[in-house]
């Protein structure tokens, strides 16, 4: 039974208020305005007053417009027919294909019981040494690319997606520039991966609030495929836009902001999405790789900051490469114990030495005389950046490890590396005569 109303009494920001009864919290409504139909969701009930967040924005909404309550929450169709399709931020076809109405499921379902989670154990190989060697990506991980506009983050996203051996790729685009959308779509297509992909795309031209549903829809679909045994990779770009939409609504609702206008529950909001990453026992998994652009490359900005606290690490993409500092995979220790004996110690030693290299660079910048040892570090830094950091490098983990040892042996004596004798004996390259 649907309830219909014609009297909106307040419109502000993207929230409209009307007087209605018997309405449930979280219920969905459709507002018919001269700009077309838009979904809206009940976000507050105060006596007879019902507050609706209008996904398409309140622009053009009139007090006399028809508001029809649907008596249910936001739902989305789930089936194999989704594969290869492109939808907008609220699940409407964007590719001219048919609207899917079968097997509707509620979005944003309940939380996985922590007791049912598994310890992650499968490494996802990417061919990128800064990931595979230094911050391994793991199936069921939630990890973000921290970056700034202008960096090739969508390229990196696409590259990882195509390398990863997953069954299904779901792309959730938020505030995506149209050419970025085309780039991602075409890349998936040209690599023959579109048929195992589903795209939920909200572009920069679409109403801002509409992007709020993108993570929920993408992750609900992902979760259901995972329950059906599929390994799913979800790409979310750019989560900064999602957070900005949350901020906009919070401000409209006159919530006291906690930090630079963002609502106090930003952390919980992000967590509700990112925690959908999971590995189901005897079924599939959901891995999330997102993009978070940082205004002014400032990692303390509330969006990257809250993201960093909730994700299982981040790849810090700066100047076209993944930096060893600031980058982190919190799950690497679950997989790098099973690769090669030297993986962990080499990874640690190389980053520690790279930190010294940075110090030497500073010294050099101050114009001080470089000692013999300083020069070794300078050489090391350059070899490291050229052979491992450069994004054009595409080698297996084994190769990357061997390269690491080679670089060390070209620059240092074993004792300078802080690696235990036992490992040095085993892995230090023999000097060529």
């Amino acid at each position, binding site marked *: 039974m649907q309830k219909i109303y014609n009297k909106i009494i307040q419109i502000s920001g993207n929230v409209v208020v009307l007087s209605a009864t*018997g*309405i*449930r*919290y979280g219920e969905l409504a459709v507002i018919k305005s001269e700009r077309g139909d838009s979904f809206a969701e009940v*976000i*507050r*009930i*105060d*006596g007879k007053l019902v507050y609706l967040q209008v996904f398409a924005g309140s622009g053009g909404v009139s007090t006399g417009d028809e508001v029809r309550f649907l008596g249910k929450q936001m739902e989305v169709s789930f089936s194999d027919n989704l594969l290869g399709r492109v939808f907008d931020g609220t699940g409407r076809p964007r590719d001219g294909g048919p609207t899917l109405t079968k097997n509707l499921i509620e979005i944003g379902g*309940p*939380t*996985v*019981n*922590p*007791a*049912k989670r*598994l*310890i*992650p154990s499968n490494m996802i190989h990417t061919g990128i040494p800064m990931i595979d060697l230094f911050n391994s990506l793991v199936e069921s991980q939630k990890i973000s690319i921290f970056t700034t506009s202008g960096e090739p983050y969508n390229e990196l996203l696409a590259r990882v997606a195509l390398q990863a051996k997953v069954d299904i790729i779901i792309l959730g685009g938020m505030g995506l520039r149209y050419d970025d959308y085309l780039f991602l779509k075409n890349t998936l297509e040209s690599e023959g991966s579109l048929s195992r992909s589903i795209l939920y795309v909200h572009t920069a031209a679409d109403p801002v609030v509409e992007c709020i549903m993108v993570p929920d829809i993408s992750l609900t679909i992902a979760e259901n495929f995972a329950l059906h045994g599929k390994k799913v990779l979800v790409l979310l770009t750019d989560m900064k836009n999602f957070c900005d939409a949350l901020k906009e609504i919070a401000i409209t609702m006159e*919530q*006291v*902001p*906690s*930090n630079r206008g963002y609502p*106090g529950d930003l*952390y*919980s909001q992000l*967590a*509700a999405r990112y*925690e959908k990453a999971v590995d189901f026992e005897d079924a599939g998994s959901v891995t999330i790789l997102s993009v978070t652009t940082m205004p002014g490359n400032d990692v*303390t900005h*509330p969006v990257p*900051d809250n993201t*960093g*606290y*909730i994700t299982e*690490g*981040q790849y810090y993409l700066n100047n076209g490469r993944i930096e060893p*500092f*600031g980058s*982190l995979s*919190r799950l690497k220790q679950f997989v790098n*114990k099973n690769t090669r004996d030297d993986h962990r110690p080499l990874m*640690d030693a190389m*980053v*520690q030495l790279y*930190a010294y290299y940075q110090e030497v660079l500073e*010294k050099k910048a*101050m114009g*001080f*005389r470089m*000692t013999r*040892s*300083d020069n070794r570090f300078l050489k090391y830094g350059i070899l490291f950046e050229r052979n491992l950091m450069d994004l054009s490098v595409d080698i297996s983990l084994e190769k990357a490890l061997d390269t690491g040892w080679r670089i060390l042996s070209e620059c240092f004596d*074993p*004792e300078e590396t*802080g*690696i*235990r*004798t036992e490992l040095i004996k085993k892995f230090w390259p023999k000097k060529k005569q």
Partner: protein
Amino acid sequence: MKNTGKIVGINKNMITVEFEGNVKQNEVAYAVLGESRLKTEVIRIKRNRADLQVFEDTRGLKMDDVVEFTGELLSVELGPGLLGQLYDGLQNPLHKLAGELGFFLQRGKHINALPEDTKWEFTPCVKPGDKLQAADAVGTVKEGIFTHRIMVPFHLSDRYEVVDIAESNKYSVKEQVALIKDKRGSLIPLSMMFEWPIRSPVTLYRERLDPAEPLITRIRIIDTLFPVAKGGTYCIPGPFGAGKTVLQQITSRNAKVDIVIVAACGERAGEVVETIKEFPKIIDPFTGRSLMERTIIVCNTSSMPVAAREASVYTAITMAEYYRQMGLDVLILADSTSRWAQAMRERSSRLEEIPGEEAFPAYLESTIAGFYERSGLVRLRDGSTGSITIGGTVSPAGGNFEEPVTQATLKVVGAFHGLSQERSDARHYPAIDPLDSWSKYTGIIDNQSRNHTVRLLSKAHEISQMMKVVGEEGITLDDYILYLKGEFFDNVYLQQNAFDSVDMATSEERQKKVFSIIKEIIDATLDLNSKDDARNFFNRSRQMFLDYNSSEWNSNDFFENERLIREWFHKYRKAGTEIETHIFRQALVESEMDSHFSRAKTAKTKKGERLTMVKEENAEDIQ
């Protein structure tokens, strides 16, 4: 007749309810949603309206829906069977829920915390006619490795006489094991379990004692430099990824206490999984039993309901108080207290309270203080002692310690382990910053050596800063050696590899031994004639110590590595010089007593006064 009300407002997890009868602050009520009942707690009352925080998703509720008040405060169950459990923030057993519901949690689903069918071997310790009061034991059961006291419920505030007591036999938690009568002669049956409201501290002890005994974590930088005491409090603030959780995980594994309660508060669910899956398999060398037998996990991770997150730390501390009452040492590890504070902030914002700094409520400080105050070493009425130690991580926004939660916490804790981004970036783990951190407690190393070492580190840091200005060539060889000594101590002692099976945990005995060897080296005058010489010496020494650190305690390797180190060191030790030389003395004069305590700290804090005060007190305390 049931006391009910009806919903007149819904705002996320907050509902406003109109009622007629009497309603109590913090009483539990249930919002009826079809078949299920959503648990809520009264958090504000204004005339005939109450604001209730809902511990579950509110979607689907509507105006006029019925709310049933229970008259009971939000409580937990106490009795045998808590150990080894995994609970959510409201003490629902998650394994049992998983057994019934599968992969997902379901709102409106509540299960009793204590297993009701387990039979416990009860041994009475009183006889009819004995006089009792709250928390006195009527008998004991064996719960794993512990003798679990079956106590007179804490809320019974009278004096009682035993009328009847069960004989030695097996009973389940709900069966009667004793009958007592109060002064007026009313009879009260006792079972092995009772409830206690989580927001009220249990204070049934004779006195609180000064926490003087170190709690051994087997993490070198903590036990040696910034110790924690049994019954004390400490905090671990740090930016994301700096290593707060890993530090707590290894502490939960290695700390020498009776019981560990892990309060996973608003962070990742995945982090708890490791503990759940691994602990049952790890045998504690001290008890010969699995670690899980001494552990309780309260898990209200980030995507679980926010209101329950706020309650979860109290659920944890109440269980700790229960076991302390049996004369046991309990350690609570809360990760992260900032998420708890944020839950308070969300609630406060929905109540439209006047916000304080960064929108936190004005009572933030007193609430944090109130929580840490529930720690403590106490003498119980029977003369035995028990303790609760609280270690909380803090997740400051932007990694800046100048924020309300960090500041409020620093005011009340006894030790501060500040993690630094710089150290974690360089993979110097644990990333506890030795120049910034402090502890008021006494550790396993005498305070003089402790201060001495921290001053060396501080001096070494100064020299390294100096080198950035004047270059390596601009400082003397002596200073350069001092700098290398600091680096060396940091590299081989303060840093500890959490993922190396040996290095992960260093016993008290081993710490004392290794520390004494290192101290000899840093106190000695070394026969080094150039900076290159010096660097090579310390590189080699580092290598030898890393090998030493990863060799099993008292194994052949261990002794061999130690012999090699001593041999190597004696070659370079200047003949004729005794321990402690002019280089170091000079360094001490220059860096002055208080310099490391105040300088390092005030530098990092603008609102430094409070902090400086703490530090100065702290500096005095360690003298």
